[in-house]
């Protein structure tokens, strides 16, 4: 895959989504299902890295780009989301007119709602790809409950899950 195409995939994923984490479904669709560029494991790993490292939402595109095409891929991915962000400056001219069109506002709202459904789908697809044992399922369920209903830090959840993975290996081995 050449870099220009990779840039375009990230650009498309970003410009068609609302919010930092919303390009996930499109990226998963384009990179793991339509083209065999990335395994589901790599995809999930990239999400985990994006959650661990500091920075604004959406920087998980970096490890995704890196897994597909190394450092150049990471740069292409970052440039793509920055280009989309930069193009928002056009709103400084257009916003007053756009905000008055009811259909535009309703359409944006529709995309936001639909996109939530798509992120549910991403979680579901990662679940199918990464859960192979009752322990895996328990880890996924515990992570869901902790993040959905408590204020436990992401790092604690991921650290605990990693420790359980290690214990499972030592226990079996």
């Amino acid at each position, binding site marked *: 895959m050449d870099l220009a195409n990779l840039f375009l995939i990230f650009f498309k994923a970003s410009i068609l*989504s*609302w*919010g*930092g*984490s919303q390009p*996930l479904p*499109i990226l998963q*669709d384009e990179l793991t*299902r339509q083209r065999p560029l990335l395994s589901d494991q790599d995809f999930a*790993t990239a*999400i*985990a*890295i*994006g959650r*661990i490292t*500091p920075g*604004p*939402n*959406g920087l998980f595109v*970096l*490890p995704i780009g*890196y897994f597909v095409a190394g450092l150049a891929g990471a740069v292409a991915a*970052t440039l793509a*989301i920055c280009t*989309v962000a*930069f193009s*928002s*400056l056009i709103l*400084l001219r257009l*916003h*007053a007119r*756009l*905000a008055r069109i009811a259909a*535009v506002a*309703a359409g*944006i*709202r*529709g*995309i*936001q*709602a*639909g996109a*939530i*459904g*798509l992120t*549910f*789908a991403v979680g*579901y697809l990662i679940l199918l790809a*990464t859960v192979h044992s009752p322990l*895996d399922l328990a880890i996924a369920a515990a*992570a*869901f409950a902790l*993040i959905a209903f408590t204020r436990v830090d992401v*790092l604690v959840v*991921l650290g605990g899950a*990693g420790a359980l*993975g*290690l214990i*499972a*290996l030592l226990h079996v081995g």
Partner: protein
Amino acid sequence: MDGRPPNPLPPASSAQPATIDDQRSAQARYPALSAERPVALPALFLAFARVGLLSFGGGATTLVLMQQEMIERRRWLDARGFAFTFALSRMYPGAHLLAQAALIGHVLRGMAGAVVALLGLVLPSCLITIVFTVFFLSLRANPLGAAVINGILPATAGMTIAVSYRLARDTMQDERGRTRLVTLFLIGGGFTLMGLLEVSSVLAVVVAGVLGAVLYQLAPGSAPTPEPTIPPTGIEEP
């Protein structure tokens, strides 16, 4: 030119036209803009770099840090100026926090400011993320490291579903009646199209936009959500 944009002083709520008072008090409300000395570009870079590097745990943190940095620590923007860039960034696709950084940069220092603010937010965090990615790959080559990652991956699935759940809950919180049903229908539809039917996600986004434009306007008493004017309410991700 001093590098400032031609019209950096729009009303805080784009839904309402500016009143004469708004215009008159603009200078008072945006002290940084009326200052003799414009915000220095290196200072702008450092301010956003700080926000990026301290942003652990996602969007809500970044938003809070950005607000503190711009309004309280540096006093470059007041609450209304910040809310204006916040509202604009939410009207546009893509990563909202990156867009807001570019918008703030533009309000403060024109095009150069937009570039510098965006780079400041992204560059340092990107470098750390790259280092971490390489570290992760070497971790995976080790059997113990691989076991750790095998534990982490199902947790990623659970967390992604949890984030979706919170987004859905927050979105539907203030909705009632048929509006709520429309949202629920679109969320369920998005999940079904991509998760179960394996339809292209791009198509699913377009379908959701068109259906939303029709259904939300048909639902009674559901004026489209006005853009938020007070920053830390509509927080994007937990």
